């Protein structure tokens, strides 16, 4: 039962994050999405994934709050309670198929390797991703330097 409630919360918060007019409320709803996803992971036995999702979510949300406050244009009017009710209803309706439909997966051989083993087996991808992160940092520094050189233009 708790998983169903969390799934409804996940869909509703995702819809609110997308359709609320004020950016700060939208980011607050996105925090709900991260929170419900992390709880779903933990309750399904993927505790490490839940903690990681939570940590990354907090970082993303902090930056989004700042940039949302800085960049967003103020909406002409506030979101009405009726619209919020409609959005929540739409979210609940959209989460119903996940309860009543079911897809049967293939029952092949299951590799019951642990998280640590799996991460070790994926170390090649890990190295590539570290290179990608370093490339991202380089791009970020290039953007900052470009902006400083062309500042005010």
């Amino acid at each position: 039962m708790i998983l169903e409630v969390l799934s409804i919360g996940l869909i509703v918060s995702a819809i609110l994050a997308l359709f609320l007019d004020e950016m700060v409320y939208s980011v607050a709803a996105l925090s709900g999405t991260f929170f419900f996803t992390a709880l779903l992971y933990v309750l399904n036995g993927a505790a490490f994934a839940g903690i990681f999702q939570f940590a990354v979510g907090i970082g993303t949300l902090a930056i989004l709050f700042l940039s949302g406050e800085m960049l967003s244009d103020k909406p002409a009017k506030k979101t009405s309670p009726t619209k919020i009710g409609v959005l929540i209803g739409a979210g609940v309706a959209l989460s119903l198929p996940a309860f009543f439909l079911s897809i049967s997966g293939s029952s092949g051989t299951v590799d019951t390797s642990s998280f640590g083993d799996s991460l070790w087996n994926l170390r090649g991808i890990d190295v590539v991703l570290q290179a990608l992160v370093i490339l991202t940092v380089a791009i970020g520094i290039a953007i900052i330097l470009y902006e400083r050189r062309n500042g005010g233009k």
Partner: protein
Amino acid sequence: MDFVILSLVMLSIGVYGLLTKRQLLKVFISVELIAIAATLNFVMLASSLGVGLGEAILVLAFSTDTAVSAVILALLVIVSKKYGTSDISKIVKLEENVESEAEA
């Protein structure tokens, strides 16, 4: 409870937002929702089969996602400061005006 359909619904919401929203931050939120849908699918399927691979892929995928998010936000701040708005349609119009003035 089927998490494949749950992640499919999340993916649909994200794609809908990506196609219809004009504010840059909303587009970014849509990308985040699509990333959540993809990782939800990985982790739930793997944990239901008792495989640790899903969690490992989530760690790697979110590392990449965070790096990409940082670049997107940097570009977003630059574009918003340059054009004074975060509305995609207004930015396109402003850019077209600049190009037509440059040609004239």
